[in-house]
C-alpha cells in the first residue's frame, strides 16, 4: 500500500528538487483536498441530517431555498440550497467575544479542535493507496489525534468564562476520556488478530479471511461497543450531555458565534466522518466489496469489484451508512443522564471489552492449534 504523498513525490520527481523541499510543496495538495472533503462533508451532512430528522418526525425539513434557481421536487431535494445559505450567514455574522472571556484562549480553542480533526484525516484511508500518509501505527495515530480535540473543548469551556460552557466542557472531557477506553480496547482486538497497527494490513487480513465483524461472536459484539462509543466520543445524541440544549444552552459552544462556531461545526461533522471510516475499515472490510464478507464460494471473476478505484465507492457507502445510523440514533433515543452515561461506559462496555479481549485471544489460540 502506497500513500498519496509517496505517489505525488514520485510524480514530481522529474523536477529534480531535493525531496525535503518537494515534500513541503507537494503537501499542499492533500492538505487542500482534506479541507475540501471536510467542507463538502459538513455541507452535505448538515442538509441530510435536517432532512432525515424531518422525515423521522413526519415533517418536510428545509423546503424554501433552491440552488441557482433549481428547487427540486417536493420531498428530498426541496431546500437543496439551505446549507449554503446557512454557511454564508455563519461566515458573515458578527464575531462576538464576551468582555470577561479569556480572549486569546477563546480564539485558540476552535483551531485546536479543528487541527485535531484535520490531523486525524492524514491517516484515514479513503481507499487502497488513497491515504495521505500510510503510517505503520495508523490505528494508534488516529486514537491519539482524535483525543487532541478534548484540549480544545476544555479551553473553549474555560475561556468563555460562563458556567454553562464550563459545565459542558467538564462533561465533555469526562465523557470523551472515558469512552476512549472501550474504543481502544475494541480496536485492540483487530490489532491482536492481525498483528499490525497498519490500517492497510488490517484490510489485507480481511481480504484474505473475512470481514472482521464476522471473525468471531466477540468481534461482533465489539463492533457495536465500538460504534456506540464513537457516537459518545463525537458528542452526538443520545450522548450529547456536553451540549445538552435543554440543560446547558449549547454547552461549551454557548459563547461562540459566526466563523468560530462554524469551525466547531465543521470539526464535529469531520469527526463523524473519521469514526465512520475507521469503523468501516477495521470492522466492515474497508474498501472491499460486500462479496468478501466471508470469502467462500465466490467466483474469481467477481473480484473485479475490488479494485482501488471502486474501493472508494464501497468504503464511502459503508461510512455514509454508518453516518446515517448516527443520525438515526440521534432522532430516536433520548439523552442519557450523566450517571447513566458513566454506568454504560465503566460497568457495561469496559467489562465486555476485557472479556472480548480474553476470548478473542483464546479463539486465536485454539484456531491456531486446530486449523493450521
Amino acid at each position, binding site marked *: 500500500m502506497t500513500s498519496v504523498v509517496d505517489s505525488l513525490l514520485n510524480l514530481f520527481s522529474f523536477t529534480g528538487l531535493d525531496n525535503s523541499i518537494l515534500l513541503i510543496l507537494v503537501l499542499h495538495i492533500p492538505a487542500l483536498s482534506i479541507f475540501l472533503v471536510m467542507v463538502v462533508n459538513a455541507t452535505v451532512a448538515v442538509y441530510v441530517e435536517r432532512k432525515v430528522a424531518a422525515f*423521522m418526525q413526519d*415533517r*418536510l425539513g428545509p423546503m424554501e431555498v433552491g440552488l441557482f434557481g433549481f428547487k427540486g421536487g417536493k420531498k428530498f431535494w426541496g431546500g437543496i440550497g439551505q446549507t449554503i445559505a446557512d454557511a454564508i450567514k455563519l461566515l458573515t455574522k458578527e464575531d462576538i467575544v464576551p468582555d470577561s472571556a479569556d480572549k486569546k484562549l477563546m480564539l485558540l480553542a476552535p483551531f485546536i479542535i479543528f487541527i485535531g480533526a484535520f490531523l486525524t484525516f492524514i491517516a484515514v484511508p479513503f481507499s487502497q493507496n488513497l491515504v495521505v500518509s500510510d503510517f505503520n501505527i495508523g490505528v494508534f495515530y488516529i486514537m491519539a489525534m482524535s483525543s487532541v480535540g478534548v484540549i480544545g473543548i476544555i479551553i473553549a469551556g474555560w475561556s468563555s468564562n460562563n458556567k454553562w460552557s464550563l459545565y459542558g466542557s467538564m462533561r465533555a472531557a469526562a465523557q470523551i476520556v472515558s469512552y476512549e477506553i472501550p474504543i481502544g480496547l475494541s480496536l485492540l482486538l483487530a490489532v491482536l488478530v492481525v498483528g499490525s497497527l497498519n490500517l492497510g494490513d488490517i484490510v489485507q487480513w480481511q481480504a484474505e479471511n473475512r470481514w472482521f465483524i464476522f471473525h468471531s461472536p466477540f468481534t461482533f459484539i465489539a463492533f457495536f461497543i465500538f460504534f456506540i462509543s464513537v457516537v459518545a466520543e463525537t458528542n452526538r445524541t443520545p450522548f450529547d450531555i456536553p451540549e445538552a440544549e435543554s440543560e446547558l444552552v449549547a454547552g461549551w459552544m454557548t459563547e461562540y458565534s459566526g466563523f468560530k462556531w462554524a469551525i466547531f461545526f465543521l470539526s464535529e461533522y469531520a469527526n463523524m466522518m473519521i469514526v465512520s471510516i475507521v469503523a468501516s475499515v477495521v470492522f466492515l472490510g474497508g474498501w472491499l466489496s460486500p462479496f468478501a464478507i466471508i470469502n467462500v464460494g465466490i467466483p474469481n471473476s467477481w473480484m473485479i469489484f475490488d479494485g482501488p478505484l471502486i474501493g472508494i465507492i464501497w468504503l464511502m457507502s459503508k461510512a455514509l451508512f454508518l453516518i446515517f445510523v448516527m443520525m438515526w440514533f440521534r432522532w*430516536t*433515543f433520548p439523552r442519557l443522564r450523566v450517571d447513566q452515561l458513566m454506568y454504560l461506559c465503566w460497568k*457495561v462496555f469496559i467489562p465486555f471489552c476485557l472479556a472480548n479481549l480474553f476470548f478473542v485471544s483464546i479463539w486465536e489460540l485454539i484456531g491456531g492449534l486446530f486449523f493450521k
Partner: protein
Amino acid sequence: MGEYINNIIYGVKSLITGMSLTLKHFRNKKNLVATLQYPHEKWPIPERNIGFDPSEYNTIRSRLHVDIDDCIGCLQCERACPVDCIKIDTIKPSKGNEFDCGITSNDTRKKMIVPRFTIDMSECMYCDLCVHPCPEECIYMVGGPNDSKHEIDYEFSQFERHGLVFEFATATDQDIIDIGAESYLEKRKQREQKLTRAEKLEGMLISEGAVPVAAAPVAAAPVAAAPVAAAPVAAVSIDFNIKSIDFIKDKEVRGIAKKAFMGAKRAKLEGVAMIDFIIAELDKASKLDVDTKSTLEGFKEGKA
C-alpha cells in the same frame, strides 16, 4: 448478576423497538407527512355554517368587493363609509366629447369614468353601510348571499401593508386622455411624488441616495470643502472614523474632539478637511498638545 444481564437484554430490545419505529416513519414519509407548505398550498375552507342566510350572515369573515363595470361613480358608498376607507375619483367627459363611458348590467348609461376606486381593508370595519346605498348593487361583501357573484376569499393576508389597499378601478391612462382630463394625470402624478417624498422623510422608504428635500439647501455648504477633500481621499483613502479618536487618553480632550468630529460630519466635511476642523476646534479650546496634533496629522497620510 442476573439483573445486570437482564437489564442489558432489555436495553438492547428497547433500542431495536425504538429504531424500528423511527425507521417506519422515515420510510412512510409520503403518507405520514403532516406539514402543509402554507403559502404554496392551502387547506380547503372548512364547510361550517358561516351564515348563508342573510340574517345570520357573518360579514367579518368576508371582504368588500366592487364590480367596477357596474359602478356609475355616484359616490354614495364613499359618503356612507364611517371610517373613510373608500376613496373614489370620477371624471366627466367635457362638453362635446363623445367618449362612451359604457352601460351597467342594469342598463344604466354611465355618465362618467372612475379612474380611482380604492378600499383600504385595514381600515374597513365591516359595518356593511356602504353596501345598501349603492343603486347598482355593485359594492358588496363577498361570500354568503353573494356567493354567486364572488366566492368568499381564503384569507386576507398580504406580504405588505400596502397590499391591503385594494384598487378596483380599471380605467386606463388612455381612457383618461380620451376623455380630455390630462390635468387629472398630472395631479395624480404630483400626489404620488408627494407620498414617496413623505415616506422617504419618515424613513419608511430607503432611498437610493440622499434625501431629495435635504439635498438642495445643504449642497451649498460643502462646496468649499469638497474639492480639497476629494483629491486626497481618492489618493490615499483616509481611514478615519470616530473610533480613531480613542487614542486620546484624556477624557475631556477626547470629548471635545468627538464633538468636533460630529460637527464636521454634520457640515459634510470629510477626510483631511475633517481632521483640520478637529485640530482647529482643539486649538480653540487650547487643549491641543504636540502628540495629539502629530497623531491627527498622521491620519492625513493614511496611517491609522
